């Protein structure tokens, strides 16, 4: 076949334009597929605003919450890092002064043993701790790269692919709720089991609690259990004077708890 220069150029241009159009089309189809795959979960984050309630008067210090959290979220068991943990407060009389002993051996995962005789203890209770998912999160403010953020539904998350591991957020959190994950090389924290709550499940710690000391629910839903507790009970948050506006509310919080 004989081709003139003009015909050859025309033909070549057609092929190039056709190939470009084809790739764009395939790419756009692929993008639509990906969008459908994410939207198939039917989770709309504008319809929810999550909240958490801890009833310290119910907690028995079994540590099943901290254990379930480590299993669900693959937090290293051999390191002293916890997304949620249980603290024990024991108040004893020392002369005329009150002495407060606070401990949390292995985050409470192995349970607690009485190392102060029961008759010396004036008052004792357990306090489960967890990330407060603040409305004004100091950890998000200090992140230099935008790797941690508050979602539309009120959960503070870490982008593990974007975090540079500078640990500013770990220092910035006034509640000590963040830790450094040596396996990922990034900062890490409680996500309220974001992969569970967006699928209609409860966070692992709430599900594991045998006495219902931990409650999780939607603050936007007026009929939710946690809204009813918030309306009825006397509640407090940790370190309210910092203005972080925590969304973990405590029922029966003692003045010694900080």
């Amino acid at each position: 076949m004989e081709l003139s220069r003009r015909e050859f150029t025309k033909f070549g241009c057609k092929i190039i334009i056709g190939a470009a159009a084809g790739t764009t089309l395939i790419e756009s189809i692929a993008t639509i597929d990906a969008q459908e795959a994410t939207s198939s979960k039917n989770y709309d984050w504008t319809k929810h605003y999550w909240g958490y309630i801890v009833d310290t008067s119910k907690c028995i210090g079994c540590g099943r919450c901290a254990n379930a959290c480590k299993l669900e979220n693959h937090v290293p068991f051999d390191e002293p890092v916890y997304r949620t943990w249980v603290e024990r407060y024991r108040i004893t009389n020392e002369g005329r002064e009150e002495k407060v002993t606070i401990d949390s051996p292995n985050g409470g995962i192995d349970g607690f043993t009485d190392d102060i005789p029961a008759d010396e203890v004036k008052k004792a209770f357990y306090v489960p701790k967890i990330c407060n998912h603040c409305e004004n999160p100091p950890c998000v403010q200090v992140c230099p790269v935008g790797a941690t953020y508050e979602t539309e539904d009120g959960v503070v998350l870490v982008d593990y692919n974007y975090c540079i591991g500078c640990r500013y957020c770990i220092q910035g959190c006034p509640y000590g709720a963040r830790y450094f994950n040596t396996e990922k090389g990034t900062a890490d924290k409680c996500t309220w089991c974001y992969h569970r709550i967006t699928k209609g499940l409860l966070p692992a710690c709430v599900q594991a609690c045998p006495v219902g000391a931990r409650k999780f629910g939607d603050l936007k839903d007026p009929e939710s259990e946690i809204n009813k507790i918030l309306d009825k009970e006397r509640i407090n948050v940790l370190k309210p004077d910092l203005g972080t506006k925590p969304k973990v509310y405590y029922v029966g919080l003692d003045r010694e708890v900080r």
Partner: protein
Amino acid sequence: MQPHLKRAFIILILVIIGFLFVRSFIVPGSFGQYGWYRGDSVAELRELPVGYAGSASCSDVNCHNSVYTIWVNSSHKTVNCETCHGPSQNHVTDTRTMPTPANDTREFCGMCHFKRTARPADFPQIDPDTHGENLQCTYCHNPHKPWFL
């Protein structure tokens, strides 16, 4: 315009173009989709695998319905299946993968029921030194339907 100003201006424009060019490669496409963070990471975190399936998934008629019915009416009904039996989503998805057997040692029951000063006084607790002669708790008590309370 004077030539030296013109040159400086052209260099400035080139620097800006270069910056935008490099930036388009470095910054992920979804950054800024919802806020000052990578929008794709939200979907990534939602898609993490689930470990705890929830007690309702045990209740199927073809599965553990009989023990579920006993448990759901017992005083242990606030203790979910996986609190003792461990995370079992893999078993729910594929019944041939078995979860680790439930821990039925005295110490495991004691995590909730051994006498401790910090526990609420109305919670059922036993003194491990005087109660049960170091026998396994399940020797007398059925964990799915405990005798007391």
